[in-house]
């Protein structure tokens, strides 16, 4: 333990990544020539020097116990000279120089319950958030839905090859910490009941701030039993929860009305088509723990329609652009409703402003 006389260290920033790079990377840093996918979840990067770096990518639940992290460390010691990394989608990657170590590592991972996969034209891990595990704002759990969906999609991670990459993300509320707004498929927790004003609100929140927080002006100052508070014009609420972010005395979570929505066709990369937002596919599915069967089924249906219909390299949004939204709804069997039609700020720009329509069939 530190003694009291020691000066307190602050503002030191993260440790330099250089301390953690394996020797083969230090040597070939910035000098990689190309890569190849050897099998699901395994790729090799070849350097100008001829050096070969093997990457084995393993699934991770992201929510990890220190016990499990220590296991990763053990594997890294055993096969990779103590080196490993995590990916931007929360998978763990073991960095090998010995091709012969690949098989045993995969076996060890399998024994621990970690499938290897997610590289190339596959479904990788679901970027997700806290849910009922830690967040006050959640309209659904995060880890549980992810587990249920990935159990079902597992072959697309570990075995089957797909037309292109398919990125799924989940956020447990409209704050979208899972940054679901640009995903091939997004699962988004939604509240559907206006905030309920708790007594004593004026003691924890500044009423003018609360009023100002509402983008639709649904919150008005009010006076109840002689106490200043606010009232909600429920017809004008679109459940954004911004008021709750500003003031915890306006909870929105509600077992009867919370649930999930499904979004499709977003992407981030600049490959071929420009980055684009996800679009609403299913406005509402119920919260049905522990396995959220409606969500699992919906995602599976959408994945399969794409997997069977898309051309090589075609992302979800590119596929839908080619076949048209009417056909997307037809193929997935999803009902098209009023909720699908935008009515927010730029709504008019989402209307079909041409006579270019696929008729008939």
């Amino acid at each position: 333990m530190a003694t009291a006389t020691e000066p307190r260290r602050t503002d030191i920033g993260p440790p330099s990544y250089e301390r953690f790079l394996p020797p083969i990377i230090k040597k070939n840093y910035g000098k990689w020539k190309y890569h190849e996918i050897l099998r699901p979840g395994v790729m090799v990067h070849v350097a100008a020097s001829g050096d070969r770096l093997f990457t084995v990518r393993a699934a991770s639940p992201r929510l990890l116990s220190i016990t499990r992290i220590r296991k990763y460390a053990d594997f890294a010691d055993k096969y990779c000279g103590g080196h490993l990394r995590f990916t931007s989608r929360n998978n763990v990657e073991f960095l090998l120089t010995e091709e012969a170590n690949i098989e045993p590592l995969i076996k060890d991972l399998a024994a621990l319950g970690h499938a290897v996969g997610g590289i190339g034209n596959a479904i990788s891990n679901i970027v997700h958030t806290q849910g009922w595990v830690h967040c006050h704002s959640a309209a659904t759990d995060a880890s549980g839905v992810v587990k249920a969906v990935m159990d079902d999609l597992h072959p697309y991670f570990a075995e089957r090859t797909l037309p292109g990459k398919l990125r799924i993300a989940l956020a447990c509320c409209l704050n979208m910490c899972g940054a679901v707004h640009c995903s091939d498929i997004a699962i988004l927790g939604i509240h559907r009941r206006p905030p309920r004003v708790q007594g004593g609100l004026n003691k924890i929140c500044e009423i003018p701030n609360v009023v100002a927080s509402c983008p639709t002006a649904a919150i008005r100052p009010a006076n109840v039993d002689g106490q200043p508070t606010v009232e909600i014009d429920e017809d004008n609420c679109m459940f954004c929860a911004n008021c709750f972010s500003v003031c915890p005395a306006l909870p929105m979570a509600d077992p009867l009305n919370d649930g999930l929505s499904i979004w499709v066709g977003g992407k981030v990369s600049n490959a071929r088509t420009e980055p684009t937002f996800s679009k609403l596919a299913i406005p509402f599915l119920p919260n049905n723990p522990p396995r959220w069967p409606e969500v699992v089924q919906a995602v599976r249906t959408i994945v399969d329609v794409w997997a069977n219909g898309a051309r090589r390299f075609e992302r979800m949004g590119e596929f839908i652009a080619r076949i048209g939204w009417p056909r997307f709804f037809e193929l997935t069997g999803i009902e098209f409703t009023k909720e699908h039609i935008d009515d927010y700020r730029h709504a008019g720009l989402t209307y079909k402003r041409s006579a270019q329509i696929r008729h008939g069939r």
Partner: protein
Amino acid sequence: MAKSGGNGTPMLDELEKGPWPSFVTQIKEAAEIKEQAQDLLKLLERSYHEKIGHWKHGGIVGVLGYGGGVIGRYNDLQSEYPSIAHFHTLRVNMPSGWFYTSEALRTICDIWERHGSGLTNMHGSTGDIILLGTSTDELEPTFKELTDNDFDLGGSGSDLRTPSCCVGPARCEWACYDTLHITNDLTHHFQDELHRPAFPYKFKIKCAGCPNDCVASIARADMSIIGTWRDDIQIDQKEVTAAAKAGLDIQKDVCARCPTQCMDWDGKQLSIDNANCVKCMHCINAMPRALQPGKDRGATILLGAKAPIVEGALLSSVLVPFIKLEPPYDELKDLIERIWEFWGEHGKNRERVGELIQRVGLGNFLEAIEIEPVPQMIAHPRENPYVFYDEYFEEGDDESEDDQ
């Protein structure tokens, strides 16, 4: 009659030079026979020097019983240009497709020689015959003579404007419905709405026979009726080959330009995946002898175009993806009336129907006019998560019920 031009209008005279037919020559021609045109010429020359117009809003002028059809104008230098102190314009319904006989044209000219400036626009931007400039007391006599000769006024103010259409089946092989007939029929059917402004703002209808949209309906009409078809494009393979031989690069200039890439040309045979064809017309335009629209024809109805004032310009968007259009067009007329009813009730003053839809949301608008939402109406579903749900469950509700 006094002579015009010469040294009196040096700037305008410049515009008599050059190969394009000159409007100045036109004013001068009229000035030969009408004093108003002489004064107009002089006033315009003055505007050219001063770089400013000299017209004032005319307030409401018109003919008895009509609220529209005349644009009132006064010049702001009345003592100097007395013959055009008033200079009101009459908007006159053109015949559908702008077809005339020489006799009909001469009738109009004669009326306008007797009662107006002798100047016209053939035609106004909305499509009317524009009789350009006369005084208040000539309005009734002009109207009398026009109606005696089967012509009537068009719209102005917050009313239906004269519907217009492309040449359609009269001369075009691509017309998917009878644009002339429907335009004439709607214009006659909605006389009251055209002549007596009772809407929140103006309402324009334009009818194009196919997606080439030769009347710019999607940009310029509150209701755009655009012909289209549902079945397969008709292909004459021999003519395709002939077009290729004649120098058309079918792969590059046709197939590669197809918006959905649904065409295939193997050098001998052209095939089209018609399920993915969006009826854009490009391939047909490029090979008029080889391709034709399908046989199951009708139209797409789109709603809401307008110029930018003040929220920005709008294009019309799809309301009815496909409709068969046969006389007496009851379904369409009924639809138009439902739209007007909702707009009349909920539209703000000077709010076009397209703006109303933006304000209340297309979903709510559809509900109000009793049309089912279909994905053809949108470019894509919403990108934001802000859905206004009307109802929610309360504890104690029967949970097995759906949205109640």
